[in-house]
């Protein structure tokens, strides 16, 4: 453990802003890259289902 | 005109790849001469861009002398890029390109000949005009030979790389901006070695190393770029 207290951990010896900003950007980008394909999948499935239902009605 | 590109190669009569190259080159040069404004526009653009720097930054001779190699190189690069867009456009529009692709002529040679013609009509005049701009930007006299030599070796590479982009975007209506987006990042090494060679010449350092690197890039471009141009044209025309 490199830090003695939680406030020391947050401050990072005055470099807190830089470190936490970097990690926050990383977390955002990783999350976007996982969530956006999942949302797209949901949308694709809904579209396909709608198309299937429409075709069933038409028959 | 178009039949040099599209007719069956008559190998029995001693027609070879070399004669195809010369035939296409002659055709392209002739076409260029008929549209003289196309010839002049990149040169005017070159002069214009270069004269924007003293206006936009500072007319101070010592400052201009410092940035001159970079400014001349960037201006040359941009005007090459500007002229690139039309390289395959007219042939694409009138169907010559499609006929050429259907004919048994090797696309490698046709592409190389077209790029050569393009360089003779833009890169070479740019190189010859560069000393004039260099004088206006107070480039030290020691750098002049270096500038002309690097442009002579560098602009053909620019034409070759640009032609790949032109071939990829020929079928698109708004290819111009896209073309610069595709091609400019690929121009970075040529720009770096070209302008730093001029800088080295000004500082009295030997430039043979830089010229060798530019030559190596040109050699690589001559071998590889026509392959990519041929493939890109085939894709653009069929799509």
């Amino acid at each position, binding site marked *: 453990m490199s830090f003695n207290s939680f406030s020391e*951990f947050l401050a990072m010896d005055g470099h807190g802003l830089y470190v936490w900003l*970097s990690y926050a950007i*990383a977390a955002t980008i990783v999350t*976007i890259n*996982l969530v956006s394909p999942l949302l797209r999948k949901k949308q*694709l499935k809904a579209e396909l289902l709608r198309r299937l239902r429409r075709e069933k009605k038409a028959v | 005109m178009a039949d040099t590109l599209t007719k069956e190669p008559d190998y029995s009569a001693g027609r070879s790849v070399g004669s195809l190259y010369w035939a296409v080159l002659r055709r392209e040069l002739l076409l260029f001469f008929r549209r003289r404004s196309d010839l002049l526009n990149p040169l005017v653009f070159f002069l214009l861009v270069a004269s924007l720097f003293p206006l936009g930054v500072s007319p101070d001779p010592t400052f201009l002398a410092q940035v001159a190699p970079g400014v001349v190189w960037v201006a040359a690069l941009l005007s090459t890029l500007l002229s690139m867009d039309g390289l395959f456009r007219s042939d694409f529009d009138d169907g010559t390109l499609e006929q050429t692709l259907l004919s048994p002529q090797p696309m490698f040679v046709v592409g190389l000949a077209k790029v050569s013609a393009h360089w003779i009509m833009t890169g070479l005049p740019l190189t010859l005009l560069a000393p004039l701009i260099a004088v206006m930007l107070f480039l030290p006299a020691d750098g002049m030979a270096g500038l002309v030599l690097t442009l002579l070796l560098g602009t053909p590479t620019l034409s070759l790389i640009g032609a790949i982009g032109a071939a990829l975007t020929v079928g698109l209506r708004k290819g111009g901006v896209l073309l610069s987006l595709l091609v400019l990042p690929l121009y*970075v090494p040529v720009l770096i*070695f070209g302008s730093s060679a001029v800088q080295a010449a000004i500082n009295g350092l030997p430039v043979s190393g830089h010229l060798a690197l530019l030559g190596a890039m040109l050699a690589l471009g001559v071998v590889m770029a026509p392959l990519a141009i041929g493939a890109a044209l085939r*894709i653009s025309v069929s799509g």
Partner: protein
Amino acid sequence: MSGQKKWMPRWFYQLASPRWCYDITGKLLPGFVIAALLLLGVGTVWALLFAPADYQQGNSFRIIYIHVPAAILAQSCYMMMAVAGAIGLIWKMKVADMVAKSCAPIGVSVALLALATGAIWGKPTWGSWWVWDARLTSMLILLFLYLGVIALHSAIENEVTAAQSAAVLSLVGLVNIPIIKYSVEWWNTLHQPATFTLTERPAMPAEMWVPLLVMVIGFYCFFAVSLMLRIRNEILHRERRAGWVRQMIGGE
């Protein structure tokens, strides 16, 4: 077909089948999700809490655990995109085109991450938000190459032509990347001699590089997960008229 000589192993032909790909990625996904979560979680905690601070840069050194994996991933992602594009060009394999298309947005975001963390790291180290450091400049040009491929792909309406054109462009870029890297490094030493580079250290002690390695592998696993999710979407979209997709959607 049975009499014909097969040039490639069987799995290579199976890869060409969208349905087989959809099934296999479905089986592989959970493993990679667990691995990515585990490695990234352990790596982050290790990097932030347990790794020692650098004697010169202090705690801002902890940014390396994001910056380096992102930079490595951005480069290998470009390579993967170009190779997949080449396979698509040569064997006319639809799945390879989908892989190449799915690589591009991930590559852009990781390249952006590497640039952003590099710039943030530059502030405490060099005193300014941007320095024309060789690595950062190469990364910037790599980002431009990615954006070019994406722009070309989206400018062409026909999906097949778009994939082929983007593949040619990414291959041209792949040939150029070493030249660009070399020229930028050379240019950098010319203009800024003896600047202090961010990541090149003579010898990193084990307590520093082991968490870095964990993060690198974690980022690769995350890349695999995101890529597979995107490929599955592409397959669903392009095979939406195929029987197996209809059955699967309708059965749920």
